[in-house]
């Protein structure tokens, strides 16, 4: 028999070991799932987790998939540190893509050197706008940001579908629900002659910048205080409203940036599905990375691998693409489970009863 016993403090060891344990347990579970689905477990794991890393094109695909996850994940980690639970990264991603793409579609003949940065900024502002709605609802009406940000994801998705099937549909697109391709002036450049693009460089740079802001700036300090001890933040005179705004605008802006880079880069146009749930996967990325920007980089790479692995499992093993979602879900499940060890320890309960001690005294 085992029992959970409070430690009384956070275990530093398990704060960092729990993601490792979660990943190991996830891999074992995936083996079982592969076996149940009729694929040899070891081959399945090899196909899913290792084969995508063995080729240069595989590695550059990994970077391409990881870039949006890291950008959104870093923003979410920043936000979660302040105890603001934005889970609407996907919606802010979509709005960022729409804002930048709208600009790119209406001005198809501009020069890259000035127009591309403007498109990116529009993307950031689009994401900020969508997250700003969450901030207003939270601060003005005390509406729970988890619910509002999630609901705004679906609204953003519907706006996207409406635009690409209606006003922004490509007139030369044979009626497909997609926009025109973006002009060269609004296209994210590839780098190193691979499929990798500018975002693959930007993402780790942003992570490092956010890391520095959180650790060194007065603003980052205020966010950490408000997240760890809201009363101490009040005592210090930090404005909760201002910090909530900043947390949401930063995470929304970074999601928006990821969105505009994704559509102007790998996708090249607006379609009805511009995100395979990056905004939700980034929630796992943020927690797996321990809400630390550098941890988020590694977590982003691992979760990006799950997308590639899903493709590989589909192609090579005839397994459904849903395997990616299963991997992510199982990983989050184990991570939340293993995180209990940060505050509790497993204790073996010995079924020995000291009968003599517990025997009640005869009445006096």
């Amino acid at each position, binding site marked *: 028999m085992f029992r959970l016993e409070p430690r009384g403090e956070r275990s530093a060891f398990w704060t960092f070991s729990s993601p490792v344990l979660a990943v190991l347990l996830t891999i074992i579970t995936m083996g079982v799932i592969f076996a149940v689905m009729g694929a040899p477990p070891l081959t399945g794991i090899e196909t899913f987790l290792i084969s995508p890393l063995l080729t240069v094109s595989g590695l550059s695909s990994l970077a391409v998939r990881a870039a949006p996850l890291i950008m959104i994940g870093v923003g979410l980690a920043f936000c979660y540190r302040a105890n603001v639970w934005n889970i609407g990264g996907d919606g802010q991603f979509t709005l960022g893509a729409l804002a930048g793409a709208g600009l790119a579609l209406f001005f198809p003949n501009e020069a890259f050197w000035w127009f591309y940065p403007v498109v990116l900024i529009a993307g950031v502002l689009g994401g900020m706008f969508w997250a700003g709605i969450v901030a207003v609802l939270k601060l003005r009406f005390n509406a729970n940001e988890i619910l509002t940000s999630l609901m705004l994801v679906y609204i953003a998705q519907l706006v996207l579908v409406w635009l690409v099937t209606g006003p922004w549909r490509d007139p030369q697109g044979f009626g497909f629900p997609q926009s025109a391709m973006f002009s060269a002036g609004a296209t994210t450049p590839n780098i190193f002659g691979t499929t990798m693009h500018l975002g693959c460089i930007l993402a780790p740079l942003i992570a490092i910048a956010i890391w520095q802001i959180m650790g060194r700036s007065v603003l980052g300090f205020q966010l950490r205080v408000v997240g*760890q001890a809201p009363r101490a933040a009040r005592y210090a*005179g930090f404005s909760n409203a201002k910090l909530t705004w900043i947390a949401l605008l930063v995470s929304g802006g970074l999601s928006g940036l990821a969105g505009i880079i994704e559509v102007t880069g790998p996708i090249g146009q607006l379609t009805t599905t511009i995100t395979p749930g990056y905004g939700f996967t980034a929630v796992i990325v943020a927690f797996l990375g321990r809400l630390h920007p550098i941890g988020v980089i590694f977590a982003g790479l691992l979760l990006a691998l799950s997308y590639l692995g899903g493709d590989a499992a589909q192609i090579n093993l005839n397994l459904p693409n849903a395997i990616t979602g299963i991997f992510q879900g199982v990983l989050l499940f184990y991570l939340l489970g293993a995180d209990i060890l940060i505050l509790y320890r497993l204790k073996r309960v010995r079924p020995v009863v000291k009968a003599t*001690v517990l025997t009640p005294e005869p009445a006096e």
Partner: protein
Amino acid sequence: MIEPAQVPSPRQPLLALRGIVKQFPGCLANDHVDLTVGRNEIHALLGENGAGKSTLVKIIYGVMKPDAGTITWDGRDVTIANPAQARALGVGMVFQHFSLFEALTVAENIALGINNAADRVGLNDRIVDISTKYGLPLDPDRAVHDLSVGERQRIEIVRCLLQNPKLLIMDEPTSVLTPQEVFKLFETLRRLAAEGCSILYISHKLEEIRALCERATIMRLGKVVAHCTPAQKTARELAELMISATLKQQDFRQRTGRAPVPRLVLDRLTIRSNQQFGTDLKDISFSVAGGEILGIAGIAGNGQSELMDALSGEIPAGSPKNILLDGAQIGHEGPRERRRRGACFLPEERNGHGAVGMMTLAENGFLSANVRAVLNRLGLIDRKRTRDFAAGVIKRFDVRTTGPEAEARALSGGNLQKFLIGREVVQNPSVLMLSQPTWGVDAGAAAAIYEALVALAELGTAIVIISQDLDEILLLCDRIAVIAAGRVSPPMPVKDATIEQIGLLMGGGTQVESEAEHVPA
């Protein structure tokens, strides 16, 4: 296996601890501690905060396990693995901090502690029986949030007594009571002891122990330094056993004349509490002059935390005119603006309010001192200045720690409090407002804090101290006011105040109300 029932001989002690050792990281909390509690005895466990008293009783109550040593109960060696086992043996404990659900009734709260459904039958009657028998009047159907702290303590005591304990452990029971309530509690405890329930009474209040306890075990720095009969010692002798150095008899009140101009004025301050069961502040007026120390006494939960929040600006006042700082109307301003004007403050709760436990001392210094000491540059934390600031406080206030990079939670309560008070004092405030400045602080640290406050007053700072420790207020303050049910009595000079008068005011007595001057002079 059942041992043959042995008739407990009256000479055999009820509880004997021998050679108890408990090591915490970096601190030997109990160093071969011996303690013997006899039958029918009221035994004092005396010591400063941090002397190891709490650790010892947690071992007796099964909350912690000793690293070494034996526990003998009724003549038999026992190991107490958990509180349930301790209760089965007949140990009851009333903790300093109550664990009651405010929204539930007295009976419901007591029922929650009873696992066996059969034992809950007729609970109300038994509560009434026990509470009348021992002079602990309680209405089982009242909701807890309506009750005073004294009444809440009675719930905890009755909860223990329902289990017919042979030993009742009381941890600092009088810190929340009025003098009158203390008197009643002592009657109850004496009666219990006479009827066969021994009492282990933990306190650092010497006069109480002399009045109540037959024997005392005195601890210092984890060791037992003396066993004695308290009635045969003077309070001063006991205190000297408790702290190593000989007490300096200091009268902090003898200071040079104060500036006649009030620096802080509260004018008809009325505030609604932001807590569900908090206390609203009603029509509070007083003023404090430069160089003056005003003490605000009162029993916990009478609006102290709301008053502190109002003084710091965490809850803004209804109108700017409600609070004046050096003549400026600041009622509407928040903590940062008030700091900029020269006010400093420290709330009662250290963890998570006055300080952030998971952050370093340097960061905790930055928390409140950045405004006045400017510890940032271009929006970035100036790490050198921040570290130097914390190091300066650590040095000047003799904070025992590894340095500015130590996490606040790693410090003992007294050391952290010295750091936090120091953090405010070195900012040279024009008005300093503190709540419970020496709560959980040992006598040595308290003396250092008092000295720093007096020195600050000498420089012309107006100081407000909200405290439940009447001795502290009488020792330190020029004038005293009492907060009860969200109202503050008109301040009176400490030298004219009597304990009876203050006790009545603390209990919400209105005797002085008619003489109240509503606008401060």
